[in-house]
Every structure is written in structure tokens, then in C-alpha cells.
């Protein structure tokens, strides 16, 4: 088998292509169930997350299917109104808190942060396992809430509906989210300290791969933002159970206060979902263009800028609540500030591709998909930062389409790119490029088919969270439901060919895509339990393809 490796003059390398097939690695050094359940190895914990969040994704996806099926016709005929309301609530909660937020950080962050910075593990391996079990416990509590009868408040839990009027299992769900929130906080804390304290010799801040910058910015948001939602849910619980007036005006509370607190976390939470995908895209584009990332420092800083700006734009979710018009103007202006670093990233990626040597592996196809959907998602955000148009579009399907473009189009495309890119490293196997590219293509087409019509629906005025709707909206809803079936095929395909590859795929060498970061150049595929044979020493910036002689390596 001939493949491209890079002769490294940089790292203290020990082979052109590291390792051999029969090496002991983190997957096969111990096969017992207990060795998985009590593992302190960040790589195994990453895989535990992968399995668990995939199950949650399937559940959230099934609920999305039920929602789209109901919306095929204007009348309520498939579900009852209450079941529909519980379905979209559960869809939102599961997809956001139990899939998107832990997706890249918990699965790939865990697997990659130590590998990419030349460390043996994260700073606190036991805390890391504890975070996983917190996530698991939170999931069990949330699923219990669903099995008991579900929650009908919407994932936003707006008061006083959630605190006084809803007759569903709000408290149980809030406890589940409270617990899973701590998983997120502790994971963020662990990564921040790992990146600060455990970089290998020579790996200065500006030699870090951009994925690490993305995960670092994400971790800061997780650490600073999540406590606010925990406290907010706690206050909601106190009002609901003890009748202490905090949000319900009948008890002397303020319902808008809840929205401020809720969005103070939940807006930055969007950046928890998207920042890691931005980091992944930088890695994938560099590797598949075989070129350094254009404007490395600016891209690194723009991740930090997005994380910081993310904390000062929350009230743009509240332009129609009757907040002061002056506050609305300030928040509108601040919201535009997020557009600038996002735009810089997109243009810098284009400049990275310019003059490159671009190959079209499955991860790159997913990254192209990401670029397209993230651009549309970002552009439609401008309609919502602009006050004059937001009033009309707020709480309509335009919003639904916009955030799905960012969080499903953007974040999940990035996640899929990442899973495909690092799969050979995680499993030591290659998947079928044919099925991989086909699934990326189907996902992209199905996604646009599903969500683009919703922009028009929103402009026509269809409110979100409607179980029944006026007849004039049916045509576009039929389009959207039809698209969702295509999208489902795109998402389900990897669930077949990836497990197949895990057991029967062709063996991968240590660096099948010609990546330039430590996990490719200095470890085997899959890595050994302790990651590196020898602590790597880094002497230059990442993505220095031009400093190396390409060599065709056979083995």
C-alpha cells in the first residue's frame, strides 16, 4: 500500500509511519467490560461519549421525524397537541444539551486534546471519568422525565408557563439538565487546565493546532456560562415547588428576568456548539489543501473574540419582549460584532485553499458542506441582528431555519467532518470513501431541502411551535418534510458504514491523510494506551508543509 507520509525534520520522530499492525493499542490492551467502564484513558472516555451521544442523537432524530410528519398536513392528525408540544421540547433538549453541546468537545476534545498537545492524558483523568458519569446520570434523569410523561414547556422553559402553568415533569427535567451542566463545566475546566499546563516542550500557544484554540475558547464558555443556567433552573425549581416569587408576576416576580438569565447562558451555548466545528474546519482544510492555514493568529483570536462577544449579545433573543428600544439598539450593534470574526474565518479558509494542493477525501467534502451551510446560517443571522427585520421574523420559522443552519448545518457537518477525519486515528481503520462522500452529499442536499423552505415560511409569517397551521403554509411544509426524509438517509448511512469499518475496514496507517499535527506525526493508529513513546518536542508552527520534503512511503 502506498501512501503519503511527511518526512518530519521537526519532531523527534521515531518512524516515517509510526507503529505496526500488531502493536498493543488503547483499544486492545484490555478487553474487559470493566476496563471500559472504569477507564481513566481520555481516548476510551471519548469513545464512551461517542456511543452515548450517538444514541441520544438517534432519539432526538426520531422525535424530529415525528414533528416533520405531523407538519405534513395543516390539521393535527398524527400526534395530539400535547404530544406534539412534548415532542418538540424533547427534540430540542436532547439535541442541544445531550448531543450538540457534548458532541465535539466531549468526544473529539477528549480523544484529541492530549494527543494534539503531546500529553499523556488530560490534567484530571478521574474528574474526566466523573464528568462522563455525570453526563450519563443527567441523560438517565432526562429520559426518566420523558418516560414519566415528558415536558411541554419548549426547551426554553419560559416562565411563568414553566414555573406555574405547565402540568408536566419540569422539575425532573431541570434536575437532569442541572446534572449534565456540571458534566459540561468540569469538562471545560479539565481542558483549560490541560491546555495551560500539559503542552509538550516547545509547544507554545501560537504553535497550537487551531482545533485546540477552538476547544479552549469553547471550554471557557462552558466554564463561565453553564453555572448561570444551573442557577436559573434552580430558581425555576424553587418557584415551582415552593412558590417563592421570582419569575411569576402573581408572586411578585418578573418573567422577563428569566429570559435574561436563560439567554445569558443559552446564547453562548450556541458558540459551545459551533466553535469546535470552526476549529475542525481549520484542521481539515489545512490537511486536505496540504498548506498552512492563512492568518493563523487571526483565526485563533477570532475564536476567542467569538467566545467573548457571545456573552454580550444575549438580549437579541428578546427584541419583541418590550425591552427598552435603546437596549435593543445596543444589542443589535453588538450582535453584528459576531459577524466580523466569523467572516474573517471563512475568508481565511478560502485563502488557505488558494494555491493549495486540494484532495477530496470524505472529511473535506463534509468541510465544504460545513462552509456552505455555515455561510448561509451566518448570512441569515444578519436579518435577525437588524432590528427592523427581526421584529417580523422573530419567533417564526425563519428563526427555526436560521439556527438549524448554524447548529445542525454548521455544528453537525463539522462534527461529521471531525469523526471522518480522525476515525482512522480513533479506530485504526479506514471507512469506505465512496459511502462517506455519498453520505456527505446526501446530507447537504437533504439539509437544504428541509430547512431552506422554512426561511420563506418564516417570512410569510408562520409562527414556530405550531401544531396546526393555516392552509397557505402547506406547500412549503411538504417540501420541508420531504427534505427531512433525505436528510435522515444522509445521517443514517454513517451508522452502517462506520461500525462496519470498525470491525472489517482496511487497516489505516498512522497518518493516512498527511496531517501535520502531533496526533498524526507522533502516534500510531490507534494510539498506544499512553499516547506517545517519547514526549514530543515541537520546534515550529503547525501546518508547516512547505518546510518538509514530501516522500512516498511504502509499508
Amino acid at each position, binding site marked *: 500500500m502506498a501512501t503519503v507520509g511527511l518526512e518530519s525534520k521537526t519532531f523527534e520522530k521515531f518512524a516515517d509511519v509510526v507503529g505496526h499492525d500488531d502493536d498493543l493499542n488503547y483499544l486492545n490492551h484490555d478487553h474487559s467490560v470493566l476496563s471500559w467502564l472504569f477507564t481513566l484513558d481520555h481516548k476510551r472516555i471519548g469513545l464512551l461519549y461517542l456511543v452515548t451521544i450517538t444514541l441520544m442523537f438517534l432519539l432526538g432524530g426520531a422525535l424530529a421525524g415525528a414533528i416533520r410528519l405531523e407538519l405534513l398536513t395543516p390539521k393535527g392528525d398524527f400526534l395530539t*397537541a*400535547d404530544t406534539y*408540544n412534548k415532542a418538540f421540547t424533547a427534540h430540542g433538549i436532547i439535541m442541544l444539551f445531550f448531543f450538540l453541546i457534548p458532541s465535539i468537545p466531549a468526544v473529539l476534545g477528549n480523544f484529541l486534546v492530549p494527543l494534539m498537545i503531546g500529553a499523556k492524558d488530560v490534567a484530571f483523568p478521574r474528574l474526566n471519568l466523573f464528568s462522563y458519569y455525570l453526563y450519563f446520570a443527567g441523560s438517565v434523569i432526562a429520559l426518566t422525565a420523558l418516560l414519566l410523561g415528558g415536558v*411541554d414547556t419548549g426547551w426554553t422553559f*419560559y416562565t*411563568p*408557563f414553566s414555573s406555574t402553568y405547565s402540568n408536566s415533569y419540569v422539575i425532573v427535567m431541570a434536575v437532569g439538565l442541572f446534572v449534565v451542566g456540571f458534566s459540561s463545566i468540569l469538562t471545560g475546566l479539565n481542558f483549560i487546565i490541560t491546555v495551560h499546563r500539559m503542552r509538550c516542550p516547545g509547544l507554545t500557544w501560537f504553535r497550537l493546532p487551531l482545533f485546540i484554540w477552538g476547544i479552549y475558547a469553547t471550554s471557557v464558555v462552558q466554564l463561565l456560562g453553564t453555572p448561570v443556567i444551573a442557577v436559573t433552573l434552580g430558581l425555576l425549581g424553587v418557584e415551582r415547588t415552593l412558590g417563592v416569587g421570582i419569575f411569576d408576576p*402573581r408572586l411578585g416576580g*418578573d*418573567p422577563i428576568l428569566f429570559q435574561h438569565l436563560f439567554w445569558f447562558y443559552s446564547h453562548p451555548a450556541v458558540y459551545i456548539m459551533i466553535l469546535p466545528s470552526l476549529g475542525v474546519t481549520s484542521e481539515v482544510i489545512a490537511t486536505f489543501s*496540504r*498548506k*498552512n492555514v*492563512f*492568518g493563523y493568529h*487571526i483565526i485563533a483570536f477570532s475564536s476567542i473574540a467569538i467566545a467573548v462577544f457571545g456573552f454580550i449579545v444575549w438580549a437579541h433573543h428578546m427584541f*419583541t*419582549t*418590550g425591552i427598552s428600544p435603546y437596549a435593543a*439598539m445596543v444589542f*443589535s450593534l453588538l450582535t*453584528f460584532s459576531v459577524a*466580523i470574526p466569523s467572516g*474573517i474565518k*471563512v*475568508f481565511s479558509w*478560502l*485563502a488557505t*485553499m*488558494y*494555491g493549495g*494542493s*486540494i*484532495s477530496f477525501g470524505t472529511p473535506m467534502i463534509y468541510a465544504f458542506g460545513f462552509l*456552505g451551510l455555515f455561510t448561509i446560517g451566518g448570512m*441569515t443571522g444578519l436579518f435577525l*441582528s*437588524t*432590528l*427592523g*427585520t427581526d*421584529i*417580523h421574523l*422573530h*419567533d417564526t420559522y425563519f428563526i427555526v431555519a436560521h439556527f438549524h443552519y448554524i447548529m445542525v448545518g454548521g455544528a453537525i457537518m463539522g462534527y461529521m467532518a471531525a469523526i471522518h477525519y480522525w476515525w482512522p486515528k480513533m479506530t485504526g481503520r479506514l471507512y469506505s470513501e465512496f459511502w462517506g462522500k455519498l453520505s456527505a452529499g446526501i446530507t447537504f442536499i437533504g439539509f437544504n431541502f428541509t430547512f431552506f423552505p422554512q426561511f*420563506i415560511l418564516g417570512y410569510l*409569517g408562520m*409562527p*414556530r*411551535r*405550531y*401544531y*396546526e397551521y*393555516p392552509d*397557505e403554509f*402547506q*406547500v412549503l411544509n411538504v417540501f420541508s418534510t420531504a427534505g427531512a426524509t433525505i436528510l435522515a438517509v444522509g445521517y443514517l448511512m454513517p451508522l452502517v458504514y462506520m461500525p462496519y469499518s470498525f470491525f472489517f475496514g482496511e487497516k489505516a496507517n498512522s497518518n493516512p491523510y498527511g496531517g501535520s499535527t502531533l496526533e498524526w506525526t507522533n502516534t500510531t493508529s490507534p494510539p498506544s494506551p499512553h499516547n506517545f513513546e517519547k514526549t514530543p518536542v515541537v520546534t515550529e508552527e503547525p501546518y508547516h508543509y*512547505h518546510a*518538509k520534503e*514530501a516522500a512516498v512511503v511504502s509499508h
Partner: protein
Amino acid sequence: MFEEFKWLPDQASTVAPEVDMLMLFIVVVTVFITALVTVLTLGFAVAFRRKSESYIPAPWFGCIPLEIGWTLIPVGICLVMFSWGVKVYSNIVIPPADAMEIYAVGRQWMWKIQHPEGQREINALHVPIGRPVKVTLTSEDVIHCFSIPAFRVKQDVVPGRYSSLWFQATKAGTYQLFCSEYCGTEHSRMIGKVIVMEEADYQKWLSEGAESGQALQGRKLYTKLQCVTCHTGNAEAKAPNLEGIYRKHIPISHIDGVKIKDGTKVFADDSYIRESILYPNAKVAAGWESIMPTYQGLVTEEELLQVIAYIKALNQGQTPPRTEETPTPATIQNKNPNKEVN
């Protein structure tokens, strides 16, 4: 299914064309940028596809003019959108001073509307063409949202406070009125119609089957709820005279029982009057003791709107005399929950 379909929403208010023009501008700009990114991505992918496995491209670390360009040009575009957006937004949120006023109360799951002339309707709002209309909104239970897509206006309806929106209809017809803030089981059935009529038709509609005017209903409540016992408007008064106070700046002495700086004033709008009825202790008029009982639970949101409409219309010397049908408010005095304020 296809016959009702349309690509563009009705455009039936004065602000609708402004919103649509701004919308069109953003569509043009964003489609251009998206097309640019798409063409460059695909173009680069083809032009710079890998031709040789051994080729390592030359590095490109940065290009200051290019980077300044793709930072400053978007900043400029954003500032244009922001400013234009603020201009349109001002027109959406600031009602003209001469707007006629209508009141709407949202509850799970219906809209109850009162016209000053006394007409009341449910899930329907009749308005005349060509006159600015301000709708004052509140909710009896959870948060709702009063949304009329054909007018491009939308305002959340929050319990415990008043919010408002305004519009001036430009085209006769029937338009959708949606609740667009999720409010529970039948959220999607909290739909009404806005019927825009010619002025003459509207006047005709108003005169048909109207009960007595909203302010008159309020006048009855003013005596029935014992307001008149203390707010007598004469020398025996135990409470401030309410004649002509609407939209005046009133000096106050205490906020929530705490003495505040002399000369502090509060603007006596709908929200202040509502607050003073439900939480008399919240902002106490200077020179008066806080002896008023709360009316929480004794008056509905609709009745509150009627009392406010009455106080609004109450001019100098118009406070009604207390009559025998309105005995001393013993019941209310007994359950006075207010603590003595120092």
C-alpha cells in the same frame, strides 16, 4: 394546497413596505456574499485540485491589505444594516401621538379585545384603514405574543405589565393574527383575524351592538370597587385626586415603603396606574399615607383596563359623588394587607 400558496406575505400597513425594502437590501447583499463564497470555494477546489502527490504548495501566511479589506468591508455593510434597521425599528415601535387606542388581553388560548367605544370581541380585531392604531396588551396567565405578519408587527404580551404595538393599516381585508410565543397546549389555535375596514364601515360596525363605552364601564367599577370612597376629589379625600393625572409627572415619596429623595416624580401612564391598583405600596404619591388596599385578585385584567380608561378620561371636577350603593368598604378595610409605612 396550491391555490392558497403565495411567495410573499400581504403588505397591509405603513411599515410593511419599509420592512420589505430593508429585507430586500439584506437579501441582495447576503445572496451576493454567499454566491461569492460558493464560487470561490468551488473555483479553488477545481483550480487547485491535487495534480501531483509529491507537490507541496508554497505557504501563504497572510496579506495585510486583503485582511483589512475583509474586515472593514463587512464592518461597513453591518453598519449600514444596523442604521437602516434602527430607522425602520423606530417607525415600528414609536406610535404617533394621535393613535387611537385599543386594548387586548391574552389568555390561554384566546385574544380578548376592547375598543374604547365599548365594542368587545374575541379572536377578532376590527380596525379602520388609514388611522394609526395603538394596541395596549397584557396577559392573564403566561407570556403570549401579538403578531400580525401582514403588518410586520409583533409584540410579546407579558403578564403583570403592559406592552403595546401600533400600526396603520393601508389595505382593506382580513389578515392573520397569531400568538407567536409558545403558550401551551392550544398555542397553535390562539389565532385571530384582523379585519381592516373603510372608515365608514368601521363606524357602522362600532355602532352595532356596542355595550356602553369602556370608560363608562370603568366609571361603574370606580364606584363599585370603592375607589371613590377615598379618591373623592374634594377636601375630605383620604387619597390623591385622580382628575387629570393621566400622563402627568406625579411627585412620589416612597417606593416599596422606603422613603426616597424629595422631588422624585413618576410618569402616570397605564403601567403606573395598573401598578398602583395592584401594588399600592409600590410608588406612593407624595403627601399621602399608604393606606390603600391591594386589588390583586379582586379585579380582572379586562376590568383594570376599563378603570384605567376611566381615569384617563377623568377631567377636572368629574369625580362622581359616593352613592348609597357604594357603602364604606368594610370588607376591603378588614383585609387590608398593607403594612403601615413610616
